[in-house]
């Protein structure tokens, strides 16, 4: 779940757009559960690598659920 404020979300989006405009940075958005993360991709091969790392989504979900449990400790 994205707990950031609308202002923070807007700021992050603006930062991504500015980076892309200034440095022609290509990015790849990925979502797991309700969490979205964005990654730089310099080449199409790098994009495929990110998606390969994302392949273990079940493990990533387990890690995120484990971290979320900190809230109840």
């Amino acid at each position, binding site marked *: 779940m*994205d707990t950031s404020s609308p202002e*923070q979300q807007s*700021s*992050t989006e603006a*930062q*991504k757009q500015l*980076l892309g405009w200034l440095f022609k940075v290509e*990015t790849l958005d*990925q979502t*797991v559960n309700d*969490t979205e*993360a*964005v*990654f*730089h991709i*310099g*080449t199409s*091969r*790098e994009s495929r*690598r*990110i998606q*390969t*790392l*994302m392949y*273990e989504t*079940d*493990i*990533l*979900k*387990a*890690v*995120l*659920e*484990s*971290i*979320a*449990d*900190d809230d109840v*400790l």
Partner: protein
Amino acid sequence: MYYDIGANVGVYTCFAGQHADRVVAFEPHEGTATRLRENVDLNDIDVTVYQTAVADYEGTASLAHPRRSPQELGTGEFSVVPMDDATDVAEIPVTRVDTIVQQEDLPQPTVAKIDVEGAELQVLDGGEETLYSCRELFIEVHTDHVDVDEVISRLTDAGFDVTTLKERGNTEFLWATTPGAESSPQ
């Protein structure tokens, strides 16, 4: 508090950083660590990145890369463990988790992920004080370099319950929990 040991370009780090109050990431390869920092900035999360390998000693090591795949970011195949078909990429610093935690006065992690391409036992041996105090550990064991039973033995001796989450080729993903930990991976 989440430690990502062998963070690569930060796939786990960038997701975890949106939920953990703080993340510490270790990545020894210079180009990969640079990309990791860029991804951290892009996601506007609080992550401390250490560009160092982690093992059971302090010093330097040759970061190896297998000849069979191209040298590029995100392959996840850089390792301090000697490989038969490897080229040496660079001399890199090596430290122990317990050492850097003490030197940098880092908070203890509650959750850690270890993906170090065959140096799993060295990481555990160099981080007993820190890692064995975690509530949960996720370890990708590279069985072509490491005896998975030896890793499991280390963890059970330290008081963890260990479950195999997944097996794929020469890797086995272990989930180690302290008794009483209630989370349950899908």
